[in-house]
């Protein structure tokens, strides 16, 4: 059973390491601001505490309050399991898995959006509306990036697209995907994970009425999603698959840390964008990826 073992180790690593990333970002923000900040493992403590807590539900909440977080979390876990990791590749790869990956992220969004509308709160409705609307642009960007990678590698599988080749459009791709990472994971300048103003929130507004274990699942899923996007960004840019296993693992870990530090720096140095600017910056990211696609597609011709 080498495949089962490899899969267990891989998914275990994903689940275990995901909550580390927000910790790194928060540490960077604290250092820049001259504070000591919360411990690196704060999210682990939070998750453990939430898992043991009693649940308080809105009187309007349906069983969807349990079903949707669970389904969203599974979608994210399967999406993560599809991604190739460095030279270890992707054991579950099949032709067209790239699109399953994109649509699994969509499934997670569908579930979180519905769970947000479940309580009938105007704030959560607002958050869900923003999330699904901006996702139109960020998903178009991700699909364009996948097209660029497919044109570059000639493959329609994540294993072929990621970590195999680096093209001339790499920098453009990196810029586009980094913006998507910030937008999809509700980071500054699109959203502020520390905000206390319900009116201005996106992701945080959607989880206002969740509590206890379902909230733990949602938070863990969000951390997992951040790690997924970080891995996508790194592997779209660096041909890690060609390195030796150890070097690839080191480079992957180092680059992901770098992405987290970059996110922390952006968050410390930038203010939030006004909502009307959000589509504009996402369209810019889309154009970055589109130019990367054109370079990858027509570059050789």
């Amino acid at each position: 059973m080498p495949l089962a073992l490899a899969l267990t180790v891989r998914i275990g690593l994903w689940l275990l390491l995901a909550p580390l990333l927000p910790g790194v970002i928060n540490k960077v923000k604290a250092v820049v601001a001259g504070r000591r900040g919360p411990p690196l493992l704060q999210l682990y403590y939070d998750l453990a505490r939430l898992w043991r807590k009693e649940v308080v539900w809105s009187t309007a909440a349906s069983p969807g309050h349990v079903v949707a977080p669970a389904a969203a979390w599974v979608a994210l876990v399967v999406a993560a399991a599809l991604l190739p990791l460095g030279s270890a590749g992707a054991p579950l790869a099949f032709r067209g898995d790239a699109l399953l990956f994109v649509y699994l992220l969509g499934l997670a969004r569908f579930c979180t959006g519905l769970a947000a509308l479940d309580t009938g709160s105007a704030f959560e409705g607002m958050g869900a509306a923003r999330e699904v609307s901006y996702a139109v642009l960020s998903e178009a960007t991700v699909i364009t990036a996948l097209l660029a990678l497919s044109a570059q590698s000639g493959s329609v599988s994540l294993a072929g697209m990621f970590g195999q080749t680096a093209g001339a459009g790499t920098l453009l791709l990196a810029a586009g995907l980094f913006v998507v990472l910030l937008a999809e994971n509700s980071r500054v300048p699109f959203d502020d994970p520390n905000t206390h103003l319900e009116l201005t929130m996106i992701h945080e507004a959607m989880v206002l009425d969740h509590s206890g274990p379902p909230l733990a699942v949602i938070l863990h899923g969000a951390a997992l999603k951040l790690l997924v996007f970080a891995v996508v960004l790194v592997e779209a840019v660096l041909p890690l698959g060609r390195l030796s296993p150890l070097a690839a693992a080191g480079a992957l870990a180092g680059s992901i840390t770098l992405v987290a530090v970059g996110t922390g720096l952006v968050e410390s140095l930038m203010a939030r964008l006004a909502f009307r600017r959000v589509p504009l910056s996402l369209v810019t990211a889309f154009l970055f990826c589109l130019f990367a696609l054109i370079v990858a597609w027509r570059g050789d011709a």
Partner: protein
Amino acid sequence: MMPGFLLLAAALAITTGLVSAPRAPRIWRAAMLAGGALAFTAAIVVLASTVAWDWRAPLAVGGEHWHLRLDGLSAFFLVLVSSFGALGSLYAHEYWSDDEHPVSAPAGRFWWAMLFLAMALILMSANGMHFLIAWEIFAVSGYFLITSERHRVEVREAGWLYLGASHASTLCLFAFFAGLAARTGSWDLGPMRGQSELAPLFWLALLGFGLKAGVFPLHIWLPSAHANAPSHVSAILSGVALKMGIYGLVRFSGWLPPPAAAGWAVAGLGAASAVLGVAFALGQHDLKRLLAYHSVENVGIILMGLGFAMIASTQGQPPAWGRLALAAGLLHVWNHGLFKALLFLAAGSVLHTTHTRIMSRLGGLWRLMPWTTGLFFLAAAAIAGLPPLNGFVSEWLLFLGLFDAMNAGGPAAWAAIPAVVLLGVTGTLALACFVKVCGVVFLGTARSDAAARAREPGWSMRAPMLVLGAGCVAIGLAPALFWPAIQRAMEDWQPAWGAAATSPAPLQALGAFHVVIAGLTALAMFGLWRRVKNNGVSRAVTWDCGYALPTPRMQYTAGSFAAIITEWFASILRPRRRVSLPDGPFPASARLEVHTPETVLESIVVPIAMQAMRLSTAVRRLQHGRLQAYMLYLLAGVVALAALALLGA
């Protein structure tokens, strides 16, 4: 010979249905169920075999011998027609009962059987004239079904628009079949790809069938017709009847030598329908109108598949990506039939108990209608193209075909790149739209008394929905099982496309993933549910920024939810706003209303029609009933002719 007997028995059953419709609803229902089951079996038999069923009657209708043929492609569509013809009749029993609708229920039963029969005949006609006759019966029975509630003025308007559009479509098809008959010398239909002089006729077919399929600029009749018909009728019109237009396009794009630009045009129209259909859907307040616009979207997705297949068919040996695109289009025909019919039936259950289609009067229905809610959510996830359901399978096939087309290079790559992006955008927009619908209609708390008093429909309405939902799940979890049927249909589209027996896409791997996702989700839900129960649950009011007593009116509305996206498309949607701002330090009232009209109809078709009317009115002044003036016309005419003759000589 086997399908022949089955079809004969089905025809007898449906005829029994026609006869028994006014007086004997039970016999009618049994007849429709039997007819549907028999026709379904016949279609499956043909799909499973390698030969088509072909039958020439000695009987001549309109001077032409009656010729029926059921090949793989028509059987593929007959599966949809027959299964919904039967399921819908079951639903109608409770939904449109004789007690509530003493006049329109018996008439509706008759026209339902007629519609079923006409659609089956369209699929099987191998003679242009009989195709036209069946087409006309199909259009007219649709009209009588749509206008079941003709005492309401908006129903009559919708029916009138439908009738006008249907006849415009029939007119195009008249020209098409007449042109075909004139150039080939016979009304017989069959493959004629060798005769390149027939190519321009395809444009007429595109217009005629496109009107019926609801392709974007030609969809003007569709939203009001589907919204105002009884819900089981909306379901068959949207899920099945639109597919007759698709069938015509698929059929004749395979039989005729298509013009060089046809594939590009079909794919372009498809992309436009897909994106704009869902954009219009987002702006709607009426649940059924919204679903109707999603039909425009899904027809667009089907046509994108067909268009790329047509582009591929112009390249000698058909490339694998073309087969993927065609397979995606065909499978989406089934998928859209399943989930759209389910959505309309579930919307019908809501309408039946709350008597309103306006989404902002609903809310909180999950508590009172758990079955309907669950099935609606299932269909919503399917139509949004989410794994592990059937909508994703066909969209995935199309994506795969388009990615391959891009990597294969050549001119098709230029079209494939925008198509991929637009298909992705369509998917996310549909997702946004269905999060809105599900959330506003079924979650939260009731926004009106009618919604608070809703109740679950009985089993005769639930059973058809369950069957359709099971179909969505089955295609999602075991897509490889359905590949042979698609393959069989492709063979009869063009013989060259049936060469390879195996699927060019790893459907088995996708199916396995879907099963794993479904299993893991069930497991995770169970685990989390137990954990929550274990930790204990207490209830509190919804957090609304400190309000102690949130009311249902404080919930987010459907209009606000969609506002971000509809604003992006405002230049096309042209939403109408009526705003009265709060005024003064103690404002008494304020109001904001946003309404998305059928823009193509109101800003393009109606003005052109008005101009035509004005012109005709001007011409009508010549005819006023005064004999002297008519004699003057005659005299002037004779003088003019004489002058012409003299000058000509």
